[in-house]
């Protein structure tokens, strides 16, 4: 099967939805491909159903706001390919998807990659044990099916999402065992460096302080200054250990939820050969773009957190800006109209982006997350430790692709999504150079494992035409 559109948007989060709505307004034919059954992305996940079930209000005003965006998208006239995983994108605008049984080719004059963020992998001792998950995973379960953790579950790490989720659990009338806070900076220190931005983004600051207050009021134990966390157990977590200074403590645990911030999902833009840079503030790779999200690969633009972490509201603005850029590139509007219409969007963008430097400074990840101790498993799929990566470097490996062929690190089903940051970081630290110099895994097709039957179905459709 093959379809053609002016614009193919990949991803149904705030950036993708806003871009689709804006592009339709200019008369572009738009397809939005999303791996989720319902629009909203992870941030507004199943917001329509949560509203219908009367749960959206309890998940907060920020979440419920996603309804407006989803409603606008439903009404905009874009073709929605829901539950479609994208397994390949070509630089000429061809997008290949699968719904689990059948593959489909969707052609775009332009392709907007709006695939969002993923949680930064947290390679610590015991992180592969059953019962260790991410905070984001638990939040997805809460948003989508109203699941809440048992009170013997711990949360460990750092970042706004962690506090948000802990407050959300309390708000829902549940409890967690405690928070092991690994934040290394402090609000006052980050404020000294980025006070102007923090003041401009005071609403976000107030929200964060509100979460902390809620957690404190509920008497949830919060251990600050945590420098190391470990999950213990034989075939399942039963204890958590942590270190503050030189003092180790241990407690029983039915589960452990880890979170160390989010990073752009760059798998797709890397496979397309888009130029990426190492972002020293956010400690991650991101694609290089112009002010409208266009990459150096002609037909490909990016919007939202996959282009650098900015949060939901910034993602929405970036989606609209990308649509403006694409509409002008396709001749639907003039460059003057694009620039004119961008002005209010950029003002909105600046308002929501003002807090970012403060947040990046406050929640900077510990160096051990990017270059873990020797005995820590970095590649979950193949069971490769940081020590084996260092051995490969000692044998002369200078980059992730060499390390991959020496150790099998990054060869499993996740295709290096989980180990990539620590592989780059470990090599960089061992060679005493910058992650940007070391580079990242070369991403090979398909982007998602595919059964031969799904691929064959594509051929059937083509020959029938």
């Amino acid at each position: 099967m093959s379809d053609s559109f002016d614009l193919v948007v990949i991803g149904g989060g705030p950036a993708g939805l806003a871009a689709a709505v804006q592009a339709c307004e200019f008369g572009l034919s738009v397809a939005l491909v999303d791996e989720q059954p319902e629009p909203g992305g992870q941030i507004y996940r199943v917001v329509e159903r949560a509203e219908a079930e009367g749960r959206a209000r309890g998940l907060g005003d920020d979440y419920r706001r996603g309804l407006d965006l989803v409603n606008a998208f439903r009404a905009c006239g874009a073709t929605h390919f829901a539950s479609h995983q994208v397994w390949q994108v070509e630089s000429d605008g061809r997008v290949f998807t699968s719904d689990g049984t059948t593959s489909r080719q969707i052609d775009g004059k332009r392709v907007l990659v709006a695939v969002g963020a993923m949680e930064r992998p947290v390679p610590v001792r015991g992180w592969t044990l059953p019962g260790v998950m991410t905070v984001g995973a638990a939040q997805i379960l809460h948003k989508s099916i109203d699941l809440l953790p048992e009170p013997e579950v711990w949360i460990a790490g750092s970042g706004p999402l962690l506090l948000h989720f802990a407050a959300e659990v309390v708000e829902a009338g549940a409890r967690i065992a405690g928070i092991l806070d690994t934040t290394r900076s402090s609000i006052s220190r980050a404020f000294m460096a980025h006070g102007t931005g923090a003041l401009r983004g005071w609403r976000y600051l107030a929200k964060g302080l509100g979460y902390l207050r809620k957690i404190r009021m509920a008497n949830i134990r919060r251990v600050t200054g945590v420098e190391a966390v470990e999950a213990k157990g034989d075939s399942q977590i039963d204890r958590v250990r942590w270190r503050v200074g030189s003092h180790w403590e241990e407690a029983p645990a039915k589960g452990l939820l880890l979170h160390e911030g989010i990073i752009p999902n760059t798998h797709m833009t890397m496979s397309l050969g888009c130029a990426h840079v190492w972002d020293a503030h956010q400690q991650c790779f991101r694609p290089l773009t112009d002010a409208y999200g266009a990459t150096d690969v002609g037909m490909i633009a990016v919007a939202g957190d996959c282009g650098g972490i900015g949060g939901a509201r910034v993602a929405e603005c970036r989606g609209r800006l990308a649509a403006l850029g694409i509409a002008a590139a396709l001749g639907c509007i003039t460059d003057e109209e694009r620039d004119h219409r961008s002005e209010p969007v950029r003002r909105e963008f600046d308002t929501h982006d003002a807090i970012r430097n403060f947040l990046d400074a406050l929640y900077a990840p510990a160096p051990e997350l990017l270059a873990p101790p020797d005995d820590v498993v970095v590649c979950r799929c193949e069971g490769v430790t940081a020590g084996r990566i260092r051995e490969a470097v000692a044998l002369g490996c200078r980059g992730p692709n060499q390390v991959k062929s020496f150790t099998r690190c990054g060869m499993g089903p996740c295709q290096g999504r989980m180990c990539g940051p620590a592989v780059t970081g470990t090599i960089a630290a061992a060679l005493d150079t910058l992650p940007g110099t070391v580079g990242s895994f070369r991403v090979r097709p398909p982007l998602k494992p595919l059964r031969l039957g799904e691929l064959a179905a594509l051929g059937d459709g083509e020959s029938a035409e």
Partner: protein
Amino acid sequence: MPFIQDGSMFQKPPERSDAILVEVEGRSVLVPRGASAAAAALIAGLPSTRTSPATGEARAPYCMMGVCFECLLIIDDESSQQGCMITVRPGMRIRRQEGAREL
């Protein structure tokens, strides 16, 4: 006993009239509509959902958003299914995957 829940790290989900009955490791489990197969395995309280073909260690869902591939399950006799990306259907049979996929 539609809900099992021996050792789940999650509380029993609120019972709703539109819940869906699935089979996890041969046992009937009632899960909320819209749950993923991986969520059903978590609700069922399975101590682990697969063993790693590389190391033999027990593993369970980690990211729940399609990134980590730890939630590979056998769903309706089809192996290596990404459990967090598949929504449950009534009567869906969900099983643990031991080691490498069955070809």
